[in-house]
């Protein structure tokens, strides 16, 4: 069975490295530290899920998520937001959408995997 593809975008290379190492056994993981480039990758690669930071030098994670929703065929792509910030209003908005999850950094791999499974509706993943 083909592994789902997850695109991770964060301007913190340590977070990207963590995500790549933690998720690569079960998913095809594509990483970028540039949110403009992330948009291109989403349209080109059709990832099954996006994991994004909020505060980045280019588009914010929220802007990126909003932009994706305007691309025909990508409207329902699930988004997990990882952030060091507590953005309660945005957190509400994201949770209300039913498609996305918001995790405050630092997040454990167990919590992240659980969120990914919930959004992808996949079978339980073996523990690392």
């Amino acid at each position, binding site marked *: 069975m083909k592994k789902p593809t997850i695109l991770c975008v964060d301007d913190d290379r340590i977070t990207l490295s963590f995500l790549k190492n933690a998720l690569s056994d079960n998913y095809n993981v594509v990483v970028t530290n*540039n949110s*403009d*480039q992330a*948009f*291109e990758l989403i*349209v*080109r690669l059709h990832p099954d899920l996006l994991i994004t930071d*909020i*505060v*980045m*030098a*280019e*588009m*914010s994670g*929220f*802007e990126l998520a909003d*932009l994706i929703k*305007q*691309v*025909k*065929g990508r409207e329902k792509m699930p988004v997990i937001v990882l952030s060091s910030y507590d*953005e*309660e*209003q*945005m957190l509400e908005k994201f949770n209300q959408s039913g498609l996305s999850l918001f995790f405050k950094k630092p997040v454990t791999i167990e919590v992240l995997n659980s969120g990914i499974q919930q959004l992808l509706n996949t079978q339980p993943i073996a523990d690392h």
Partner: protein
Amino acid sequence: MSFTLDRERIAATEDHVFLVGDLAHRAAVIAFSVHQASARSDEPFEVVRCSGISDAQILQLLTGVVDEAGNFLEKGILSRAAGGSVCIIGVDEMGPRSQALLENVITSGQFYPTGGQLPELCDVRLIVTAETNLKSLTQAGKFRPNLFYLVTEQVLVVPKINEQIDDIQGVMLQQLIELGARNKYLDEEAISLIVAKGYLEDRRELRNLLKRAIARNQDEKISFSIIEAVMSEADLIGIAPSNLAKNVMSSHESTNDDIQRRPSVLDMPISEEIKLKSGEAPPDLVEYDRRYWQYLMDYVAGDKKRAADIAGVSLRTLYRRLEAAGVEG
């Protein structure tokens, strides 16, 4: 003419568009903004990047693959984008076969899928970019002349983000919404100041600036004076974008002029207090340190910013050192 107006007028045509200018990582985002502003906005939008893959791979990506019966095993970008727009990043990287395909798509509105004998109809708008000078490439015989004229029907020059004045208000609004300040807005002078000071080049800086401005402002309007005051604070602690840029330059590319302009501890007259007298037993380092910081603060008459500049440390470090030395700031 503004970029946004240019973009909207070009988007309103049905012409193919050639993007030039500040496109680093942004080609797809800009192309999508053209697509959104066009009559095709409800139709699909696809992207292909031509660098790093062979001519045959580009061809297959664009046309898709069919079986012997002509059924698609995998749809290509031209099929998936039917009725919409295709952004081709690096059209100059296309080989002769994919160039011929593209020319055929534009002139005849059809293509042959890989492995197929029957043509597929195709209606897409192309929005393309090139890394090299496409005209020179054409003159050198490496790019089809007819295709060159077809993909450059319209040329959209993309300015740097901080020069896209019309889009800047949208950027500010988005940031304010994200910060939970939907009811607030910036006046035009405040926006101009933010642009002039380079805050748009890094959204993280902009976000922090707006956060500080929101915290200090009770009114709906965030005025020029609020932004100016907040910027002064940022400048004081050395975190304004211009200072960050200066810091980067000073650590990597300092010139003699820079060094000479920067106030230095060497500019201070030697105080009797800190000068070691001949024959005097030198004080221990802690005591010498205390004397130095005390003298420095006296010398600058309590101006910590100046003291930090002279000592060559950040303001935060200055506070720490003063506290450690037991010197009142």
